[in-house]
Structure formats: C-alpha cells, structure tokens
C-alpha cells in the first residue's frame, strides 16, 4: 500500500528531464510590475532584514563551540559505533571547510577525525574472545529486555495521555456530530456547513473534497435539492464518519471495530461498512487481534527502524535456539516470549519516539550478534577468514528461517509424497537445494558485509564478494522486499543499501550537527553574497539561505547529548530573529514577480545538449541522462522500409501510416536524382497526374509497406544511432542524429503524458 504514492509520481527519467527543463528556464510567464515598485519593496526589505542578519550569521559558530565542549566532556564520540557515521560526518565537515573558514567547524573536525583514526587502527586488531561463553553473553539480556519493557511502557503511557487529551476533543466532536445528524433535513445547507466545520477538525482529505464538490454542485445548479439531501445524508455523512475514524486512529490509537463504534456512538456494523472502503483506499490496515476482532490502525508510510531491528533480533535469537543446551534454551525461550510481546506492542503503537529505545536495542543487538558468533565459532578452530565468512553467512541465512524450513521440509518431499501424491525427484531436489543454498549463503554474506562495513552498493558488494553483479542485484531486490535491507541513498549513481539501523543519541547528534554544519556553510556564503548585492533577482537566494538557517536552528533544538539540549540560550536567542527574517523575505517575494529568467518554448528549440548537460552537471552535481539527442527524418530520402523500426533496440522509432503527400511536390531535382529509380518514378507519376497540390497529410487506416512517416519517441530514444546506421535511404540515409535536444517536443510529451 505504501507504493500508492510512488505510482502517481513521474518516472525517474522523466522527472529528471522535467527538472532540467525547469532548471534551464522557468516556463511560466508572469506579468511584470513597474521597476520602481520593485525597488521600493527591496529597499524596505533591506532595511528590515539587515539588522537581523548579524546574529543569524553568528549563531552556528557559537553553537558549535559549545557542542565541542559538551562532546569532549561527555566523551560522546566514543559512543559512536555505527561504521558510517564518523566518515560521513568528517566528509561533511571537510566540505564545509572548503566553503568557509570557521574555527568551530575545524575544531569539531579535528575531534571527529582523531576519533576516526583511532577506530580505524583498532579495527584491524582481532577482537579478542569472540567465542566467549554464550551464557555470559546472554546474561545481560533479561535486564535489557526489562528496560525495553519499561521504555515501551513509557511510550504507551505517553500514547495513553495523548489519547486522553484527544478523547476530550473527540467527545465534543461526536456531540456536535450527533446534534447535526439529529435534524439534517430542515436546513440542509446549515448541516453542510456544520459538517464542513467538523471536517476541518478531522482533516480527512476525501471528506473535504467531497464536501467542496457537493457545495459547488449545489451552487452551480448541477445538483437538485432532492439529490443534494440524499448525498448529504448518505455519502457525505459516511465520509465524515471516516474522517472521525481517522482522527481516532491518529490521535487516540489503534482500535477494533466495536471499540470504534462505541467511541463514535454508532453501531459496529455501520463502522464495519465504512471502514472497508478505507481499507481499500489504503488508509487503514490490520495490525493485530483483540479476541476475534481485528485491530485497525492507520497505514504508516515507514515502519520505525527500531521495530524492524527488534523483529530481526527475535528471528536471530530464534534461529539460535537449536544450538543451545537445555537450560539456556528454556531461558532464551522465555526471553523470546517477552520480546515477541514487546514487538507486538511496538507494532500497535505504530509511530513513537525512537531515540530512547535505540540505545537499549543496540546493546541487545550486539549481544545477539556476539552470541550468534559464539555459537558459530565454538566447535572449529579453522582460521581461514573466507571459510568463517561463509559459515557466518550460512548462520545468518539460517536465522532467517527460510533455509531452516527448506532443510526441514525438503527431505520429506523426497522420501514421502504430498497430499496430491506428488513426489520430489531426488535429483531435482539436489539441484534445487544447491542453488537454494548458494542463494541463501550469498545473501547471508552480503548481509554480514553490509552490517559490518555500512551501506553498500551493488557494485561494492560485487567487488567484495566476487559474486556477479547481476546476482547481487537480484539478491538485493529480494532482501529489500523482505525488509531485510533499506535504501540508504545514492553514491556515484549507484543505489546504496543498508540494514535497518538505529542511531544512538550520540550518533544522531554527530550526524545532525555535521550535516547542518555543511548546509549552514553553503547558506552562509550565499547569504553574505546576497546581502552584499541586494537585488530583486537575488530574493529567491535570500529566502532559501535564510530558510536554511531557520530550519537548521529548529533541528539543533532537538539534538541532545545525555538528554539535554546544547547551547539552548544561543538557539533561543536567535529564534525570533531568524523567523521574522524568513517571513519578511517571503512576504516581499510574494509581492514581486518571478525573478527567474523568462524562457519561451520557442527559445528552447536550439538548446545545445552537451553544453546544457555540462551546465546542469556543474550546478546540480549530476546530469539527467547521457546519450540522447533528436533523430531528424527527411521524407525525401525515406523508402518507408521500416528497417529503422525493426532494428531499434528501444522501440523508440516507428513508421506511422501517415503520408505527407505535399512533400512529394517539394522534392528538388537533385534529391529526385538520388532516389532509387522506382521511388522517384512514383513521385514523378504522382506529380504528372496531380491537378492540384495536396493540402493535408494522408492518414491510412492500416500499415502500408513502403509508405509512412517516421516518428521518434524522444523518451525512449537513447541516441544509439542504430536507425541512422541501418537506414538504406539515398546519400547517408533519411535519418540523422542531431546532438540537440528538441525541448519543445519533450515538453509537449511531458505535459501530455502526466
């Protein structure tokens, strides 16, 4: 259901090209306002904003200075374990320093870099006593589990108190609704207004739209009174109820149908009827059972990372069970039981404040990992690294159940038959298991590598594992679907995959602060340059740079180390200033016309693709797509043979059954001479017969070999020149690849198809 959003969006290639078109020059034209008015507005803005900028520009360094102090005091950096956090943070700070000079930034950089060097050097040393005693490793688990229990308890408490507050709102909402529905007919318009007021509180999109439509329909006379009343009392009321249900699920928490019925004072069967459509719309989902009744919750776009991690820990522990001795197994089983319950509670909660759970879960995760390794390494002493990797991969795969089930069930299928009397051929089973084991082991290896080394792309993985990249790719897709891996951004055009990770407080702090340091560095340069040259054209830059400062400030307010916010006074001190600066800039901007250069479609006609690509790449960091251009076709040289269409690897070129007869009359003597004799004779005969020059193109009902007009789909064309090379037309053929991008054509296609 979470795919709904992506389906509606543009295809990536199209989106990138669209971005590029918009980048090259906005296509909207706006009416101009007199320059004197513009100047006046700009002067006003300059007067108001300039006094604020000093403290805005200063606050990042002040914050960073305090942050460094706190970090050193609390030895925060030592608590960073996630392998990707430090390198990324260092990289961000380094890029920040390429833009600006800042003592604070370089101070933080030194701190992090030292720590990074330390961890890198220790990484090489073998970790002692991995094998360890499993019992000892599992020892701290009960305590961790009870910690999780209490954290979840706190979550639930928060959720409950939130729910209570929401319930009060809900009660008034329901009361109003009851009042409204008791007498809907006497004044239908008033009822609709009442509904709309309620709807505004629930903020349920489908209702809001339906209500607006109904109102407009009535106003414009498309809906008569009778129908209006009917729609109001049936359809619209239903949508409103759905809104109330969403309100409950959002604010009060997941509920069953009877509970919902009680809350909104409606019969459960009514609720049931209403909720089915919401289910279909992908707004609610079932998250558990209460007795026999399903519990519904709103659909979340992302499951919190910590929930996923807990799910994985449980699987890993369960996979280990068989290798444990009696007493240890019993205790682990009871722990598993507790964890299962906790997981269920987390699922019911849906969204929650992840950070407070992260630390505990990470510890739990580490213990589980060590236990897995201990289980694995106890019997053998083989030191071959590759073998160990392979075995751990196997164990990794085993903990994911799939392998376990296959190993358990497979032999049965060979020796016995299933209910249909079918039997598995031992040979088939063997090859099946071989490829299956290969797959699972490869996936296990990949997971271990990603977990140890941080997010990786298919290319990195192929290099590291020596597994062919296409196999890697299919494994990645599979594991992504199984929620074992998540997308973690892009690197050199390759998608990065990572295991679900939760960042600890220290990690979050480091990451956020260094990311923001980089953003603020860019924003600072921009802001300074705009202030130095305060012009109407630069107002967009002013707004975005100020906005960056404002948002960064908001984010920093949420960053905590050991539970407390850093440099609170600095942040508070600048809060009002930066907000009003942003607001003033936007207000002025709204009064001014677009400051983008105005470009008409016609002007885009001769855009030179290579240079645009270059310009675009230098500013955006990447180019949309290489290898495209415009295929130009000359009818006078075309034999209508369709060879281009047949040979095109992308199905981008097509011979359409359309004849441009007019063109027959435009051919020069020269091109007639170059044409194959019968083609020329055909054109000549048509001319000999004609009593008038045709005015329209001929559209044929069917394909006609030898006739037609070439059309190229610029979206599909990859500029491979195959058609150009294949064309048997006279001279160099009827087709030519021009390294110009026919933007008007592209724009037309974008707009027509989205």
């Amino acid at each position, binding site marked *: 259901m979470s795919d709904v959003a992506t389906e509606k969006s543009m295809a990536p290639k199209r989106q990138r090209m669209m971005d590029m078109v918009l980048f090259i020059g906005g296509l909207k034209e706006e009416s101009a306002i007199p320059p004197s008015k513009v100047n006046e507005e700009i002067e006003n803005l300059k007067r108001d904003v300039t006094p604020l900028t000093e403290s805005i520009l200063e606050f990042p360094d002040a914050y960073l200075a305090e942050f460094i102090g706190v970090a050193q005091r609390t030895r925060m950096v030592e608590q960073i374990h996630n392998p990707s956090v430090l390198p990324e943070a260092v990289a961000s700070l380094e890029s920040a320093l390429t833009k600006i000079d800042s003592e604070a930034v370089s101070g933080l950089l030194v701190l992090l870099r030292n720590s990074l060097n330390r961890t890198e050097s220790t990484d090489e040393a073998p970790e002692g006593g991995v094998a360890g005693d499993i019992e000892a490793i599992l020892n701290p688990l009960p305590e961790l589990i009870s910690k999780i229990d209490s954290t979840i308890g706190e979550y639930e408490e928060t959720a409950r108190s939130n729910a209570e507050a929401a319930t009060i709102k809900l009660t008034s909402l329901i009361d109003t609704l009851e009042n409204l529905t008791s007498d809907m007919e006497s004044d239908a318009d008033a009822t609709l207004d009442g509904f709309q007021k309620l709807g505004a509180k629930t903020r349920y999109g489908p209702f809001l739209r339906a209500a607006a439509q109904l109102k407009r329909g009535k106003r414009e006379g498309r809906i008569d009174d009778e129908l209006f009343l009917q729609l109001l009392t049936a359809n619209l009321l239903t949508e409103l109820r759905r809104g109330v249900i969403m309100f409950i699920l959002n604010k009060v928490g997941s509920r069953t149908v009877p509970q919902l019925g009680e809350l909104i004072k409606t019969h459960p069967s009514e609720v049931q009827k209403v909720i089915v459509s919401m289910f279909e719309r992908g707004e609610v989902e079932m998250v558990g059972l209460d007795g026999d009744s399903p519990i519904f919750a709103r659909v979340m776009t992302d499951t919190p990372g910590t929930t996923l991690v807990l799910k994985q820990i449980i699987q890993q522990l369960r996979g280990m069970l068989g290798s444990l001795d009696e007493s240890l197994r019993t205790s682990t089983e009871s722990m598993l039981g507790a964890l299962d319950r906790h997981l269920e509670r987390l699922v019911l909660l849906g969204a929650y404040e992840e950070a407070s759970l992260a630390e505990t879960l990470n510890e739990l995760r580490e213990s589980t990992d060590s236990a897995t390794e201990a289980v694995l390494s106890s019997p053998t002493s083989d030191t071959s690294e590759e073998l160990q990797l392979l075995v751990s991969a196997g164990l990794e795969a085993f903990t994911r159940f799939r392998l376990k089930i296959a190993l358990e069930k497979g032999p049965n299928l060979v020796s016995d038959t299933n209910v*249909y*009397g079918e039997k598995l051929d031992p040979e088939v089973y063997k090859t099946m298991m071989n490829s299956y084991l290969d797959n699972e082991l490869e996936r296990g290896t990949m997971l271990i590598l990603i977990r140890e080394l941080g997010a990786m792309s298919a290319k990195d993985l192929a290099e590291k594992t020596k597994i062919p990249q296409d196999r890697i790719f299919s494994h990645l897709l599979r594991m992504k679907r199984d929620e074992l891996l998540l997308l973690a951004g892009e690197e050199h055009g390759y998608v990065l995959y990572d295991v679900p990770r939760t960042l600890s407080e220290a990690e979050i702090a480091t990451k956020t602060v260094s990311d923001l340091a980089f953003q603020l560095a860019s924003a600072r340069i921009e802001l300074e340059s705009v202030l130095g040259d305060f012009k109407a054209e630069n107002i967009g830059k002013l707004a975005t740079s100020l906005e960056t400062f404002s948002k960064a400030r908001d984010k920093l307010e949420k960053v905590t180390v050991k539970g407390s916010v850093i440099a609170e006074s600095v942040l508070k001190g600048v809060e009002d200033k930066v907000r009003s600066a942003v607001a003033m800039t936007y207000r002025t901007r709204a009064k001014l016309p677009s400051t983008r250069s105005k470009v008409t479609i016609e002007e885009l006609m001769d855009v030179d693709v290579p240079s645009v690509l270059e310009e675009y790449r230098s500013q955006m960091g990447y180019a949309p797509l290489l290898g495209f251009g415009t295929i130009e076709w000359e009818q006078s040289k075309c*034999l*209508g*043979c*369709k*060879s281009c269409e*047949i*040979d095109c690897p992308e199905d981008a070129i097509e011979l359409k059954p359309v*004849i441009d*007869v007019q063109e027959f*009359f435009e051919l020069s003597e020269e091109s007639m001479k170059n*044409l*194959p*004799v*019968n*083609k*020329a*004779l*055909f054109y*000549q*005969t*048509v*001319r*000999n*017969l*004609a*009593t*008038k*020059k*045709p005015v*329209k193109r*001929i559209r*044929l*009902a*069917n394909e*006609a*070999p*030898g*006739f037609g007009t070439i059309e190229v789909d610029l979206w599909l064309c990859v500029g491979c*020149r*195959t058609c150009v*090379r*294949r*064309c*048997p*037309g*006279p001279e*160099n*053929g009827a087709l030519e690849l021009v390294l110009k991008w026919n933007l008007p054509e592209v724009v037309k296609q974008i707009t027509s198809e989205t």
Partner: protein
Amino acid sequence: MKRKVADNKSAVLVCTCGKQLQLDYELIKNAVSKMKLAASVTVHDLVCQEEGLAKISELVDKHGGRVVIAACTNQKIQPRIDEQLELNGKGSTQLQYVNIREHSAWVHENQEEATRKAIDMIRGVLARSAGSTPRQVEKKNIPSHVTVVGGGIAGIEAALSLSNLGYEVTLIELEEELGGHVILLPVVAPTGKSGKEILTGRLDALQKNKGINVMTKTRVKFVEGEMGSFIVHYTTDENENEKTIETSAIVMATGFREFKPTMMDEYRYGKNPDVLTQFELSCMLSEGALARPSDGEEVKDIVMVQCVGSRDEEYKRDCSKLCCTFAIDNSLSIIEKVPDAKIRVIYMDIRVPFEHEMIYKESRDKGVDYIRGRISRVWETDGKTRVQFYDSLLNQYFEVTPDLVVLSSAILPPEGTRELSETLGYLVEDDGHIKELYGKLRRNETRRRGVIAVGGVTRPQFVFEAVTDAQAGALMLHTELQGGSIEGVARGAVLNVDDCVGCSLCAQQCPRGVPLMIEQTDKEEEDEEQKFIFIASIDTLLCHACGVCQSLCPTGATQLNFLTNEQLWSEIEATLEGAGPDYPITLCFYCEECSVSTIDIVGTRKMNYPASTRLIPVPCAGRVSIIDILKALESGASTVMIAACETDRCHIGGTGNEIAQVQVDVAREILTAIGWKGERVDMFRMFSAEPERFTTAINEMVKRSKELGPTPVHQGTSGKWMEASK
C-alpha cells in the same frame, strides 16, 4: 527520365477457334500487321490441333521464340503447346498469350467492340513480348535429407514414405518410445485392432530401414536456414549441449495434447484419483490393468463425460472431433473385459463420422447407456465418488456412485508449436494449430517453403486421416525437393545485386520468406558513416513467382524474369493506346489464380459485360504496384481495377492479395489528395464458383468510368498542379 523501350518484334498467331468466334478477323489482321512490334500475322482456324501446333513450331523457329498467340484461355492451350514444343526440343518460355475467346468474343455482343478489344490486347501483349527474355533450365543440388519432428503415427508414416521415396530421414521424438498416443489405444475404430497392432508393422519397418535415423528423448530447439539448407538445433535428455542436423526440409508431426481439466473444479480431476481423462483410461486398458486407482478395486460402474473443455468458450471453442469415438472405443474394450459393467456416457451431441457410426450402434446394442445432459457436480462421501447429472431428455436429476469418472477432454495443439513457429516461419491459427497454406488446394504445406505439417498438429485427426495426411505431405515434399537435385526452368524473381540498397521490404513482405537479408560486414568496415549494409539474396528456384517483392522494391533490383517492370509498363501503355473520354476504358489487372478461373468461367458461360474493358494478367495480384495503377491512369484508363483472390485465400502464400489491397488503398488516398476521384481505382475479390463476382465488379467499374466522366488526363489538367496552386 527516358526509358529504353524494347522493340523486338514478335509473330502473331490468331486463332478463329474453328471459325466459331464472332470477331472481325480481317480487321484484326489489318490492324495487327500495322503494329510496329508485329513481325507477322497469321490467322489460323485451329491452333490447338496438330497443324496449328506445327505452325507454332515454325513461327518459334522463325522469330527466335517470340510468338504471341491470340486464342482461347492459356489455361487450356498452353500446356498442350508447351508439351509439343518440348517434344520438338524447342523452348516455350517466350510465348505470350492473349485470350480473345473467353475474355472477348464470348462475352461481348457487339462484334465491332469485341474486335477492338482483341486488337488492343494483342497490341499490349506484343509490347510485353518485345521485352521478354528466354529462360533457362537451372539445376541445384541439395542434401536428400528430411527431418521429421514427432514420432507418433503421422511422423512414423511420413518418415517411412519419405524413405521409400529415397530420402534420408531423421525422426526426432521427445519421449523415450515412438508411437505417440496411438500406441496406447486399446482399440482403434473402425479397424478393431489395438494401437500397438497398427503400429507394429511400421515400427518393424522403421527398425529395418537404415535410411531412417531415429532419435528419441530429443527436443528441437530452433531451426535456421531455408529449404535445402535448414539447420535443426536440438538437445537430448542425456546431453544438454545443443547439436545440429543439416536437412533440406522439415515435417512437423508433433501430434496433439490432451487437455487436463485440473482447473475445472466441478469434475474433481487431479483431486479425486478415480477421475480420469479418456486417454488415461486408454492407457489403463491397453496395459490390461483396469482398476480403481484409489484402492485397486475392480471397476463395475463408469460415468463418461463428453465435451470436457471442448465446445466451451473458455477452453476449446470447437468440437475436438475424436473424443466421441475414443469414448466408444474404450466402452467397448471395457465391456469386453467386464461384460456386466455399467457404462453411462453423458453427452451434449454424439458426433461419430464415417463408419464409426457402426461402433456407436454396437455399443448401444451392448448396453452402453447414452444420456443427453451435463454433469452437475462430482464429490466424495465415505471414500466413494458421487456424481450428480442432469438428463435433459427426462428433465430429471440423478445421482450415482460410479467406480470411475472418465472425462473426454479436449484435443489441443501440442506444446511448443508457437515457439517453433518463430524460427520455422509457419503461421499458427488462433486455436494454436499450424495453419496450412490454403485449406482447399495447398493442404499440408505451410507458409514456409520446405516446412510441411501433417497429422494432429494441423487439426484433430483420426488415425487413418493422420496416415493419409503423412503420405500426402511426403509426396508434397518430394515435388519440392525432387530427390535432392532440383531442376526446372527458373521462373521467378531475379535479383540484380548491384541495384539492391538493402531496404529489406522484399524480405519483410515475401509471402514465402524467400529473400534473405545478408549483412555485408566487409563493406561496413570501409564505410565512413558506419552504416549497416545489407543486401538481399533471392534463390529463384525457391521462388513462387508472385512478384510482391517487385511491386515493393524501390530500386527495381528484384524483378520477375517473365514480367519485368518494363514489360508490364509497356503493355499497359500499348493496351491503352488511344484510350480517351469518348470511349472510357476500364483496365483490369487479374491474378492468374482465382481471378483467371473466375473470368474464364464468365467466358464459358457467355455472361455478358461491357466491351470497354481491357484485361492484363499478372501472376498474383501482389505483383501490381501503385506505379502500375497510376501508369494505367496516366495512359488514359478511366478506371482501374484489380481482380484478386478472396481474403485469406491467396494461393501464393496468403498475403499477395493484401499487398495489392494496400497499393489500391494508398492509390485511392493519393488520387483523392491530388484532385482525382479515388473511386477510379478499386480491388475486387474473385471466386470461381461465383462468376457473377467478376461481372458485378467490372460492371461497377465501367459504370464509374462513365459516371465520373473524363479523367484529368483526358481533360489535360493533370500535371498542372503548379498553375492550380497559384
């Protein structure tokens, strides 16, 4: 551009058909002798008799083979003349014929007009004759080897027949054993013999025959090449590596597949072991092991269900033809073994063709119960199979507890038919069977030359039908392969490689896939533009001479060696000499398949139509290009029509008539666009059983020529578009 027009003179021999034809021969003689391409004119009373034939011999000698014979239909007279000339050791390839009897004298009342038409057509054919060239006998040797795919009854029979005709044969079978479905039939109607008995003799013959290489457990992957040099790629169960056989032709005898109705829940097939298909019962019976599959108990009570999947919109729409007979065969075998068995056959209609009616009667006499109705459902209680059915004659529901439920399930085309079609080039019908070239006259042949289809793969067939089919197919191949040394007068398309630009229109549109496009890799290296350079290659001996390639070729590189563009264009011009608005002429191109027979029958029936018509024969309607049509108008024709075979009935390979249709459609559109009336051009489908199709068509075109009045050519406005647009 100026064309070089051939001016070779020909002798003209005009026949009076025993002084029976109402034509003015004096006028003809006078007129023809004035034609500059006529070397001499002879009027003869009986060209088809000995003295006439002797006269032809004489004229052939005197005029280097260029003789125009104006007589009755060449369909009748030409074989006789050819035979006679061959006996005398003379070539007949340059003789041309004008039909002044069926196409003129017999169909027009007005003698003067008919005579005028005959003269015009003689003038036209003289022009055609002037450009003719003698054609030679050509030879070609190919491996005398045929590959038969499928080792069922049809495949075995085809292999044996081909071997008897002197071919080496490779017989490829997917399964371990030969014999397909037939070997497992307990009895084959109406012979009374078991499938094994029917096959024993053939299997023995196969074993003894050293010329047949049998490969079992072998699967054909794909095929490359053309007739005379096919390469079959195959794999075996033992060896996954692809191997190849070189072969000259391929016989598709892959049989059929019985429908397994697992998805039809009402029958419980695949869920209840006592529910079988008819063929599964056949196997059980021929193994002599009739027992309930669920517990091995004896079988006393059987319900057979007909039309499972057949005559069903969702599975197979039509009747599977064989299942009724199979059910009766199996019933009789059961009664033979278990005389007191109770057999109920639940049917929609019993369809038993030929003498199978006898066994149907026999089964009724022996107590098989035929119930007209349908099964409602099958279910199980207490380990017993229960069946509820509806008897539509009694309008009553019944429930029984049979030991077996036997489903007469549909006969479907074998798996892999479509996959192989991709490289073997045959067409596949909508129902998945291989499409035969032409259902009436070209059975067993497929669209691809050198690939024939026999047995169940073309449609469900009884055993004896599959056998005759296989024999026919073998003979069909023999006429093509001629024992490996193909010899004949090369009559077909000839490619002038130098003119070919490699557009591949011929290869795309040839109805029989004869032209091949060959990439010229060495030339590509020299090319600065890095062009892909292709050149066509046409084996004239393989060509069916329809002329589609010629009609589409933009350069004139490929032309029929008996009807070049120049020949046809000068014939059009000569035939239409003097055509004008006062006596508007309708020009008709007709194909020498369906159309010639239709028009000849119109003649023999002496059905009248206007004499303001001129007829030009072409081998196939696909030979007529848009240029030919426009040239006819340019030369003064008022209307132009093409007479072609009926849709889907193109005798040349299925698409020649459709190519012609495209030329006509495009010509009409273009004419309309350039200020003409598109209706001046049209195409009509002929069918010799309905001669009125031709008279209706030609009357219509004559009517149009009168109604539409003078053409722009007549009015002198054609070509004046520049003035018009000013």
